């Protein structure tokens, strides 16, 4: 797989582009790259939000080329979780409303669990604040909780902790890994130098 914008250039060594790569459920991956290396592009390709790449993307051996929008939407509710770098939260909704909007689509997590996660990440006091008035670090934590309010085989995290301190990074990592292990799912997290602190993670260079 290769993003089309790179096709004319000679790109430096990469374990992802121009090679065949398989992500497995139950494994944790850290994809590291310099900025502009195509991390967000990779996430968008896997999530079906963009198709401007050369090569093939297969889920369980099936080409995603032929997937219809409604099939992508089903995958996004039931198999693929994603926290984009820009978070895509709704600034006019509160932290809790943002999370509940997603949870109402999947009906996956009980209310008490959400409260518990808010507490673990230390933003329970901000739950009724409009997200637009929160700091980026707080927004990232809201986004993380929202991302795991669904069943998934893989969770894609695009620079999920770029605005968190080490302590909060560790807490977030533990929470994500716990949920992934519970579901037997894989984690794919990208970073430009502040990686999600997951133990036993395979490191890939983009």
């Amino acid at each position, binding site marked *: 797989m290769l993003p089309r914008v790179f096709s004319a250039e000679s790109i430096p060594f990469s374990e992802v582009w121009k090679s065949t790569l398989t992500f497995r459920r139950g494994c944790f991956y850290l994809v590291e790259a310099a900025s502009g290396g195509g991390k967000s592009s990779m996430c968008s390709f896997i999530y079906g939000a963009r198709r401007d790449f050369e090569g093939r993307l297969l889920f369980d051996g099936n080409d995603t080329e032929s997937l219809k929008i409604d099939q992508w939407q089903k995958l996004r509710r039931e198999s693929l979780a994603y926290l984009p770098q820009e978070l*895509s939260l*709704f600034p006019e909704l509160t932290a809790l409303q943002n999370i509940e909007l997603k949870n109402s*689509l999947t009906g996956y997590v009980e209310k008490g669990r959400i409260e518990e996660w808010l507490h673990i990440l230390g933003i329970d006091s901000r739950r009724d604040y409009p997200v637009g008035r929160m700091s980026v670090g707080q927004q990232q934590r809201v986004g993380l909780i929202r991302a795991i309010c669904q069943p998934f085989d893989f969770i894609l995290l695009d620079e999920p902790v770029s605005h968190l301190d080490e302590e909060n990074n560790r807490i977030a990592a533990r929470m994500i890994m716990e949920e992934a292990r519970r579901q037997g799912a894989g984690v794919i997290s990208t970073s430009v130098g502040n990686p999600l602190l997951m133990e036993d993670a395979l490191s890939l260079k983009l």
Partner: protein
Amino acid sequence: MIGKLLRKNTSPARIAGFLLSNFIGLAIIVGGLQFYEDASSLFTSEDSFVKSDFLVINKKVTSANTWDRGSSDFSREEIADLKGQPWVRDVGEFSSADYRVMASVNQGGRGMSTLLFFESIPDGFVDAGGSAWNYRPGEEIVPLIISKDYLTLYNFGFANSAGLPQMSESIMSGIPLQLTLTSEDGLRRKVMQGRVVGYSNRLNTILVPDSFMEWSRRELGSGKSESPSRLIVDVNSPGDVAIKKYLDEHSLEVAGDKTGSSASYLLKVVVGIVLAVGIVITLLSFFILLLSMSLLMEKNRDKLHSLLMLGCPVKDVAAPYIRIVVGVSVLAYLLAVGCSECLRLSYTGALEGLGAEKGGWWFAPAVGLLLTLIMIIFNVRSVRRRVINSFRN
């Protein structure tokens, strides 16, 4: 919550603009059609035997041709010329009986008899329902269509002065007429029964089936073929000015023309103009809705994209906009039908005073509903397309 998110940026002014213009457009269309339905009975004198597209024409009788027998006949060349006109679909000739007809009625012992005449036109021009309008040689009964004016003349002119009872159409149809047909030389004679099967507003004659005319002329006629003095013409559009021009140039008259056809033509033109205005306004309102939904969705494009990124089904994302489209369109339609009904109430009295019969109530609202549904379908498709377009970055 999705609805709350996506309805942000909705402009009440634009929606109201659509509602108003769609209401006005639909009200004009529904009201106009309804008025046409209600008023058209004033102009179309029901005549089930001859279609309104048929004109009966003859040459004007002037003092110059009063004594010149045959001068009011149509020659072969004249008929061919008429057939060649672009507004003519078909021309039929009246053929008249060249024998004497005496009709008598026996009414409770009081006998009454009169001389009559017969004419016939090709069967294709008579629409009297198949078997009733047919004659097979040897049959005793001859079906007749007479002018409604004859019955009126009898009822209000003759019956009053002669002390005879007035007769309705159905009573008249039930009375057997004894017909005595005699050849001109008086040597051949046939006695038959006549039965009136219909009355016509537009044919000033006593009509017999073409098959009877052929048979009786063979049996009793002189054998000479005569040129017709009247023609029945099937035209494309009775209101065509070219027809009037041609008739004037050739000194021809249209029989039974009670100016109804030109008034009904005028009504059609006026309703046509009104409908055209209504359609233009409706079309504009359709574009107002299309554009305001597009603008609204363009403003909310990021939100649409974010919702799809969360895995929201396309139909759920489109639903708030579809609800606006359907809600406002249906409201505009209901208001328009209500307005048309009010309008109808206000003119019904006046029209009934003129002797109009109420037209059907469902046609005009059904047309409005159809237009509304078409607009809804197009707008819903456009909304869905826009949601799908915001799927990818």
